[in-house]
């Protein structure tokens, strides 16, 4: 981390004590708003990809984004993680930073934004030249300056929790797709972010490997981690989401509790999309 925000709690490295629960979320669920994004717009050239997106995430909440390909789901996540700079709008984290994209964003704020969240990618994007444990401690050690021994202890505990204790010293290519994706999740967790962002974490997996990854994410949700998940696994959304947003053409078409969205969508577009996925042959 290139800098520290003044508002950041000092006890953020809660898993200091080996034996402390490494899967405990870094935010206590207390229903207060963790993240508020307002009026996010983003164009690539002439292509207006996001047209005023509003998003509110409470502590401990699981928000699921669904929508057709190209609707802008990934771009939303990337904007939250500071990988993409919106053209307009605001992003506010409780305790900072607060960014208004009307003006150019100082580098420090962008780093602070990245610091708050961590992303799990569709294609895992593990570092192929590092072993599993090296992948996981890279962020804590190189960026957050956590002492290496402590980082290793914490990483090992996390790997253990997702059933990968014996893969510590394997290279990514030696793992199955599901194992790779679980390492990707651990790599994100090791940063102790306040918000986890998942971009279709299972869509590149063989179907019988999907379960092991969804299971891990669901456990994290149950334990109170705050997360935004882009996924096409509607059964997961049904079971784990607090709120589901349906995006299409760069806008949020509909949002609501999963029960409502899946059983009784108000918008025709939502219904058509869900039909196509749930009943592809009709």
């Amino acid at each position, binding site marked *: 981390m290139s800098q520290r925000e003044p508002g950041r709690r000092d006890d953020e490295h809660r898993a200091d004590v080996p034996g402390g629960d490494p899967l405990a979320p870094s935010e206590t669920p207390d229903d207060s708003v963790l993240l508020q994004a307002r009026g996010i717009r983003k164009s690539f050239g002439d292509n207006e990809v996001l047209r005023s997106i509003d998003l509110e995430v409470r502590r401990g909440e699981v928000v699921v984004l669904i929508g057709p390909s190209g609707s802008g789901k990934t771009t939303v996540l990337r904007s939250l993680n500071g990988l993409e700079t919106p053209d307009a709008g605001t992003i506010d984290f409780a305790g900072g930073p607060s960014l208004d994209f009307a003006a150019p964003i100082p580098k420090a704020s962008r780093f602070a934004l*990245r610091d708050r969240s961590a*992303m799990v990618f569709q294609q895992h994007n593990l570092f192929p030249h590092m072993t599993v444990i090296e992948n996981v401690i890279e962020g804590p050690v190189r960026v957050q300056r956590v002492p290496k021994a402590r980082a290793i202890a914490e990483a090992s505990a996390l790997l253990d929790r997702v059933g990968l204790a014996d893969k510590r010293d394997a290279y990514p290519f030696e793992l199955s797709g599901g194992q790779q994706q679980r390492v990707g999740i651990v790599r994100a967790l090791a940063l102790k972010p306040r918000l986890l962002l998942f971009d279709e974490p299972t869509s590149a997996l063989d179907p019988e490997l999907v379960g092991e990854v969804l299971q891990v994410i669901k456990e994290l949700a149950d334990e109170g981690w705050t997360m935004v998940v882009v996924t096409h696994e509607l059964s997961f959304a049904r079971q784990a989401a607090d709120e589901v947003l349906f995006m299409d053409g760069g806008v949020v078409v509909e949002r609501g509790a999963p029960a409502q969205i899946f059983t009784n969508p108000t918008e025709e577009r939502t219904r058509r999309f869900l039909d196509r996925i749930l009943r592809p042959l009709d």
Partner: protein
Amino acid sequence: MNENLQLFLDSFWPIVLGGLTGTIPLALASFAIGLVLALAVALMRLSKNRVVSGIARFYISVIRGTPLLVQLFVIFYGMPTVGIVLDPWPSAIIAFSLNVGGYAAEVIRAAILSVPKGQWEAGYTIGMSNGTALRRIILPQAARVSVPPLSNTFISLVKDTSLASLILVTELFRVSQEIAAFSGQFMLIYLEAALIYWLFCLVLSGGQSRLEKRLDRYVAT
């Protein structure tokens, strides 16, 4: 015939020695410096700043578009006219380094571009700056990709160092020329020199294979 064989045998060690004391150190030193330069140029070339990338493009274009011979001449015979007089060895190392810098820059640039964009982003998402991501994530992967083309650059360099004789550096080819000039047996001696270059290249290729294997340990085979 026998006489020729004798000449061949008598010349062998002097030519090899010319290689070991001239060609190889010159090539190694120039390559090492040239690589550092090439990395810098490659990064400039990738810069979004158009002036910076323009300078890099121009440099690469000039280095690749003009004969090495002239580059050597400019540094050795040309620089004194602006008051910079360098000895043969420094001149040669500068010239060859600049040359490697131009050729290897494109290789390194391509290697950096060949690393998937997702690797940069994975670095960013764990909080890395551009520089850290480059150093820790991208370059180690780019290194793997660039070994084969860079070793080509190096093998070309080994042979190109023969031009150093033009600026008074004694190396493999110079020794051969001297022997050839005195004996008049140009054909025989040049063939012998070729054989010795080839032996050097075989040894270097062996080194390349070993290096590739080391760098390939983390990919499925």
